[in-house]
């Protein structure tokens, strides 16, 4: 966790230095990110959702959202967007207190979230810089067809790479890209090993609250970098040691003592009261053994690895396979398989007010999962980074009811 924090902090430092050092930056999103390709051109990625969630965790988001609302953004707009716009309007000081560079490129890899498109339209109004858009076909039936892949690869060749070349002043070098993809695959192996360690009883990790720390580097700027690989090697060793010692997950209050409920969680966490939210789980002995949120930046545990032998095709496959790009049937199938594989006692949906791409269809998912697994589902509501939508008493009430319901079912 400490190493991860240092890496994130160092990245923000590098971003702050970028204008002085003449380095270029591209704003882009986590799902469907093309980090290896961007970094091949020595461009630094800036991830607005990560900035927003970091601001949320550091209690800065409330003011930023208010600022965005002052500029006319309605209460119903995605709070990541408002947090980002508000931060920009207040001088673009990033969550760690250093100034974020202006983008040299807005690179939108569109994977299932329509809001991303609107978000970048807003950013385009603010910055006078080129925009590149990669349109990734939605996986309604959960199958990547050849023509889908061809379509994405064609866009990479004709649209994305030329823009990156234009912005960076460098030529596309496939060998450099391949070396980065190879590095990625190594980290991905280690990450999957870590995530799957939760199949142990007790689980040595929490795959949601702890999980967000584990996915941090690979989902943000560090996929395909030596630092990223190093982090996952260390993490893997640490988790293996916990399994060996029969230890439960790390929490802010130390190691969780007794594992009472194993849960699968769907939906992103709340960031503004992240610790408080987490505590509501670990105080009751609830450990999240698998979550969909930790798959928004890639479904590595279902077998996908970046493949250096087919560099552009593999980037296309990666983009199409992200959780946010999957249709509801695929999402339900995935959650169901998690519940079986990870021996879960039930599942909880955190329905986030400002995220349509996650929240739409969640009640249907709840019913289908209950029917298919016979296990009870819990439903709570919060928000990503708007502190006004986190009602601790209400959420605690529902969670406690849910845990007691699990107890009752067990003893029945």
């Amino acid at each position: 966790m400490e190493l991860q924090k240092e890496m994130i902090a160092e990245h923000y430092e590098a971003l702050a230095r970028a204008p002085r050092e003449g380095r270029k930056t591209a704003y882009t999103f986590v799902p469907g990110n093309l980090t290896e390709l961007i970094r091949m051109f020595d461009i630094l990625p800036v991830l607005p959702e990560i900035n927003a969630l970091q601001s949320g965790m550091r209690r800065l988001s409330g003011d930023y959202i208010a600022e965005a609302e002052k500029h006319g953004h309605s209460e119903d707009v995605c709070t990541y967007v408002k947090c980002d716009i508000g931060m920009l309007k207040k001088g673009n000081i990033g969550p760690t207190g250093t100034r974020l560079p202006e983008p040299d490129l807005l690179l939108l890899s569109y994977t299932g979230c329509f809001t991303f498109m609107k978000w970048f339209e807003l950013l385009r109004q603010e910055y006078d810089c080129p925009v590149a858009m990669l349109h990734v076909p939605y996986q309604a039936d959960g199958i990547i067809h050849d023509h889908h892949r061809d379509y994405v690869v064609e866009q990479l060749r004709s649209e994305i790479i030329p823009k990156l070349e234009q912005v960076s002043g460098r030529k596309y070098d496939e060998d450099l890209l391949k070396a980065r993809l190879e590095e990625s695959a190594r980290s991905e192996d280690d990450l999957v090993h870590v995530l799957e360690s939760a199949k142990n009883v007790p689980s040595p990790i929490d795959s949601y609250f702890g999980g967000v720390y584990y996915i941090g580097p690979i989902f943000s700027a560090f996929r395909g970098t030596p630092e990223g690989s190093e982090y996952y090697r260390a993490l893997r060793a640490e988790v293996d040691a916990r399994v060996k010692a029969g230890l439960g997950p790390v929490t802010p209050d130390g190691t969780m003592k007794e594992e009472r409920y194993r849960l699968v969680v769907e939906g992103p966490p709340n960031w503004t009261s992240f610790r408080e939210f987490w505590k509501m789980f670990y105080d009751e002995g609830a450990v999240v053994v698998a979550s969909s949120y930790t798959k928004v930046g890639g479904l590595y545990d279902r077998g996908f690895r970046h493949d250096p032998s087919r560099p552009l095709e593999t980037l296309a496959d990666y983009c199409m396979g992200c959780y946010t790009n999957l249709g509801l049937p695929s999402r339900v199938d995935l959650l169901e398989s998690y519940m079986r594989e990870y021996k879960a006692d039930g599942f909880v949906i955190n329905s986030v007010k400002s995220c349509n791409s996650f929240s739409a269809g969640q009640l249907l998912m709840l019913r289908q999962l209950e029917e298919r697994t016979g296990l009870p589902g819990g439903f709570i509501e919060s928000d990503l980074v708007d502190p006004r939508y986190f009602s601790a008493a209400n959420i605690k009430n529902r969670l406690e009811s849910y845990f007691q319901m699990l107890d009752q079912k067990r003893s029945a």
Partner: protein
Amino acid sequence: MSGNGAMRVFVGIDLGSTTTKAIVLDEAGKVLGRGITNSRSDYDVACNVAREEAFIQTRLTLVRDALSSDAGVRERGAEFLPTLERSFRLQQHLGQLERLREAIHRETAVPRHFARRKELGGVVDRIVDGMVERAPRLYAPGAARKSDFFRDLAGAEYMELAAEMCDPLGITFEMLCGVYDAAILGVENTTTDSFFERHIGDALESALDEAGPSLHEAREALRGAVETARSVGLDETATVGTGYGRQRLPFPKEQIRSEILCHGLGAHAMFEKTATVLDIGGQDTKAIQVDRDGIVTSFQMNDRCAAGCGRYLGYIADEMNLGLHELGPLAQQATSRVKISSTCTVFAGAELRDRLSMGQRREDILAGLHRSIMLRAMSLLARSGGVQTEFTFTGGVAKNPAAVDALRELVQENYGISEMNISPDSIYTGALGAALFAIRGEPAEDAA
């Protein structure tokens, strides 16, 4: 009976956002007593007051049981019991009036009233004397009391008498209201330990006097029954708390259950075939599905916004200057139903004034309000898995006839179900569930 000869009882307490309810059960799960009070901002006091009331009712139930088990006085006892209860309630009320008098006198001693303290005290005494004089009317046979809470009963009488006795140039109405308002909270919040044990004797004698010579022969048997009920030891074997304020209850975590589970189990105990429960309380609406054993299988609750909950009706009642219980009957007099767009509690007043300013009738607006509340509840029901037979409606709002009508209509339209269970004690559903959990959590005496 427990080892020391005391009777084992189990208590459930539901600490709601508006009212706090307590229920006492015997070992077999039979309801012995119920108590209710407003939750105020002090949960500990609310909990004690409700529990005390439930224990008083328990004693009265024991009197009834003692009378009915004595063949000699069974019939007469059944006749006598309401008289005894009224007499006891009157005693209780008079006791509270005296405490009110003392508390107001303490308030008159503040420096602000220094110059007129004596005069003010005199008027207060005359008002309270008037209240004492009127008290028997409140507890006369067949008298309808507007509320079960001392605060409401005393407040209405005090204000009426104060208005008569005040003097705009001397002791003003505002002065009288001021000292009352400062005093009533303390009176309400005072619990009276073993009140039943101390006062049932007086109540019995005055009830016997009231009943007259017809009961002359049965006097000793009646006294005996009351004494039996008074002296039996009650062993509070286990207590379980639930409700919005349950975290504040002074017992360990294991004795606290979620209100969802308690409402599910309570509804099941009231109506055994319950499959779906809708509970609308002060600030929560819950849609709950239960299995054949009363175990919750899924639930949905409103989010932090209390739109369309009981509190919303409270605001509307305040805005219309009506009592909460008057809203439903007024809505039932509607001739057409106004479409209401917002059930937002914050905007309740604005919405209402908008409608009134457009010339719409209060009855029609209220009918629309009740329907819009139920439309929200229907959405939660749908989310929780729909409505199955049997369907049970609980919580304070289930006492509102217009809310019940609107719900019945919508459930019929959407699910083709016309039957709905509503218990007259529906407000105690959560407390009942909690008390049943208390029984379940304790080993039976034989096994212990």
